[in-house]
């Protein structure tokens, strides 16, 4: 073990300063530590809570001069992992396999749910809606009030209210658009079932409510205005 035999402590406390240390003690002379180590001397202390005031660095030098003070250098703790026993290894591997099995089962159930939802949605789309959906995972719904909505694939914020801008006839009689009205998204709606359902079921639910009770749809949904 390393030891200190000279004035290590003086470099710790400045000789010109009065240093109050914790625990505190009253020191009447610079030999207090010497006396402390030899068993003689005067020191004022208060049991375990010792009041100590050092007025110069010589206190420490008295303590250390001529004595070998064993010091335990600070060492960064070294973590030595314990090797698992064969039984622990087996248990860890079994837990890993079980977690993997559960994950794969959840994935399989999710794929099955998506497949069922897709079939239900497609069974209740018109031919035109189905063609749109197969092309781009979106379809349009006309409500009873005549408004047109675009239902896109997703769970939230996936329904858009559209404004149909008529074709523009130029002064020379030419149609400036290709004959089909331009569809402008004017608002986005966020509404979905309280319980999780696959995306395709969510889209069907939105379409059904829009068609059957547009007022209720608009009352429930959170609306974000998009275009002027």
């Amino acid at each position: 073990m390393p030891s200190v035999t000279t004035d290590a402590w003086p470099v710790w406390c400045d000789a010109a300063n009065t240093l109050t240390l914790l625990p505190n003690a009253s020191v009447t002379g610079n030999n207090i530590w010497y006396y402390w180590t030899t068993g003689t001397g005067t020191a004022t202390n208060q049991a375990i809570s010792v009041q100590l005031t050092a007025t110069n660095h010589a206190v420490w030098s008295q303590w250390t001069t001529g004595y070998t003070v064993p010091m335990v250098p600070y060492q960064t703790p070294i973590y030595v992992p314990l090797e698992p026993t064969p039984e622990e290894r087996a248990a860890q591997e079994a837990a890993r396999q079980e977690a993997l099995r559960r994950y794969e089962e959840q994935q399989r159930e999710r794929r099955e749910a998506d497949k069922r939802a897709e079939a239900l949605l497609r069974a209740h789309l018109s031919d035109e809606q189905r063609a749109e959906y197969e092309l781009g995972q979106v379809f349009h719904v006309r409500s009873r009030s005549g408004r047109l909505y675009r239902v896109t694939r997703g769970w939230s914020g996936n329904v858009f209210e559209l404004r149909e801008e008529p074709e523009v006839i130029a002064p020379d009689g030419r149609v400036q658009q290709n004959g089909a009205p331009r569809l402008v998204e004017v608002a986005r709606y966020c509404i979905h079932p309280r319980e999780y359902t696959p995306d395709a079921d969510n889209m069907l639910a939105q379409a059904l409510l829009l068609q059957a009770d547009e007022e209720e749809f608009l009352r429930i949904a959170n609306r974000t205005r998009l275009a002027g």
Partner: protein
Amino acid sequence: MQCEMSIMGSRGDMKVLWDPANADEVAAAKAQFDELVQKKRFLAFRVKRKGEQGEQIREFDPEAGAVILVPAMQGGA
């Protein structure tokens, strides 16, 4: 004639089938309908195929043909 009720859920829809001429099957389907619509606030839509506009129903109709039950809806983020 076979009628069916598709109940939406996290695992896709669950089908409940009944024959309007079979009183037991009608009673079972009605019990399930009432439990979901009256107590759990599911929305029920009587639908036809091919995107024809369906209508919302609040009472079980044994002759409904095809019904879709949707969990109560809420506004999202």
